[in-house]
């Protein structure tokens, strides 16, 4: 019993759970990469190096999210694991760069006039997990654990793994976060016919999440191929009857190349509509991903504040408001095209 009370105490003492208990919805942040490009980051360079080389820009990035109305922002540590930093010869600096990312976040959050949650971003390793690929479960846990400790030292309130495709990688991250004794959230990217690159449906993700020993505070979807697809995924989560808070972080439209810059074609108005629809679908933590700039966040906050939560929208209503879906089925409606019947399998 004492142990239970202690656990419960711990759960309620993290800043995100407290905020979720008090609020019906939380506005997360927008893009990191797109915003840093606008400050002069060169394509191909590691954004995480700016934590130590140009901390003023990272502070500005965080501050812009807070000023635009975000209740929660992710740290500049998406590629801050050893597997990713190896590309830049900085694999030994994973813990340090992650720690500094969180320290800068803490600085901005603590100076803000309202409660702000600092979420320590953890991106995928980029490797394929064994047995198909070379990355073993043990090594993946080690890589994620190192980054988790850095983010914890830097003062992150929660850890936040995102853009994951493989369930094995999500589970490895969860195990690493348990080792670091940190509360966490985790989203996957559903970018291939409504599923992750590895073929995971929204329903399968719910199933996986509920089986994890240290389940996330919230789970959901980020990035992918546009706001409509992302909301279809959210509806897929809700259909499983989950009670766990759902995260929606969709891109601001589709990327276009304009005057030497990547520009996403979603307008602030459209992202405002997306935010309300995401809440209607059942998401409680709502934000943007690639292409979501401060002006989008301002519009999203205003829309969420001025509109009442509505009924759960139909797929038709989503398509009507935000545009069509990238595929006819997302694999959860029984209408997905079936795999070829091969003779060996038919017999087996």
């Amino acid at each position, binding site marked *: 019993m004492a142990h239970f009370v202690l656990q419960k105490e711990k759960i309620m003492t993290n800043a995100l759970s407290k905020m979720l208990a008090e609020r019906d919805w939380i506005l997360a942040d927008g893009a990191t990469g797109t915003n840093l*490009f606008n400050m002069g980051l060169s*394509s*191909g360079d590691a954004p995480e190096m700016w934590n130590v080389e140009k901390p003023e820009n990272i502070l500005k990035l965080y501050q812009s999210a807070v000023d635009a109305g975000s209740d929660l922002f992710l740290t500049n540590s998406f590629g801050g694991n050893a597997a990713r930093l190896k590309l830049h010869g900085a694999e030994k600096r994973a813990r340090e760069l992650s720690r500094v990312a969180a320290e800068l976040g803490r600085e901005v959050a603590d100076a803000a006039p309202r409660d702000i949650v600092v979420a320590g971003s953890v991106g995928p390793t980029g490797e394929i997990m064994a047995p198909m690929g070379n990355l073993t479960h043990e090594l993946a846990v080690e890589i994620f654990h190192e980054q988790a400790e850095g983010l914890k030292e830097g003062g992150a309130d929660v850890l936040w793994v995102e853009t994951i495709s493989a369930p094995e990688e999500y589970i490895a991250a969860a195990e690493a976060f348990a080792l670091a004794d940190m509360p966490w959230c985790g989203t996957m990217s559903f970018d291939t016919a*409504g599923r992750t690159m590895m073929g995971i449906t929204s329903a399968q993700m719910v199933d996986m999440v509920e089986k994890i020993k240290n389940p996330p505070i919230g789970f959901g979807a980020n990035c992918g191929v546009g706001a409509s697809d992302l909301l279809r995924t959210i509806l897929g989560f809700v259909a499983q009857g989950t009670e766990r808070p759902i995260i929606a972080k969709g891109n601001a439209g589709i*990327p276009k190349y304009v005057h030497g810059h990547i520009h996403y074609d979603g307008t602030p108005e459209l992202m405002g509509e997306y935010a309300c629809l995401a809440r209607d679908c059942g998401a409680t933590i709502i934000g943007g991903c690639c292409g979501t700039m401060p002006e989008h966040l301002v519009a999203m906050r205003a829309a969420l504040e001025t509109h009442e939560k509505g009924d759960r929208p139909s797929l038709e209503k989503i398509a009507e408001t935000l545009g069509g879906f990238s595929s006819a*089925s997302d694999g959860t409606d029984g209408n997905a095209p079936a*795999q*070829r019947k091969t003779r*060996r*399998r038919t017999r087996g």
Partner: protein
Amino acid sequence: MSDEDEIILDELNDEELTLQMHDDLYDGMKDEIEEGVHILLKRGWEPYRVLTEALVAGMTIVGHDFRDGILFVPEVLLAANAMKGGMFILKPLLVASGAPRMGKMVIGTVKGDIHDIGKNLVGMMMEGAGFEVVDLGINNSVDEYLDALKKEDADILGMSALLTTTMPYMKVVIDTMAEKGIRDDFIILVGGAPLNEEFGKAIGADAYCRDAAVAVETAKDFMLRKHNQLAAG
């Protein structure tokens, strides 16, 4: 498993065996593919015929189902691995028998991007279609691409990016090629999850390929045009 033993490849006639090999590629069964290749060769098939009718035709089905959201990366990796097993046997024989050359591709993921799953799939499917593929791996700078194109006397440059933060680097590579006056010496194909056709056009690539199957079709198409141009010129 016991049911699988009922299919004895050597007892199938050529047509049945070819169809079974298409199935086995689809199911990613490497040992069975290797066995099938050996049987067809033993029956006197030209290596090039084994390649096209058994392997390439089978991988085309895999490619189409990948394109259509029926198969996903894990299944395609298994299939490509089985294909690789067959190719390993055929490659020296194809070289020795002077089988037709489709073209040569230098492929790599751009600087800063570690993701190479899509690029590997394209490389394997291109090899499966008979192209020579030089894989530069991940994290390639402009110089690495240009050096390889020159050294390998390649026809095609394939670039892949999976991150918003790295995709503009493709333009850096193409712009550098244009500055050096070598842009039009190569067919440039680009791909990766965040890209689209409009992006491919805007950065000056010849084509954006949304998946490995499309990359193969596009490469074939451009090589044909190149040959026609040479013939006309």
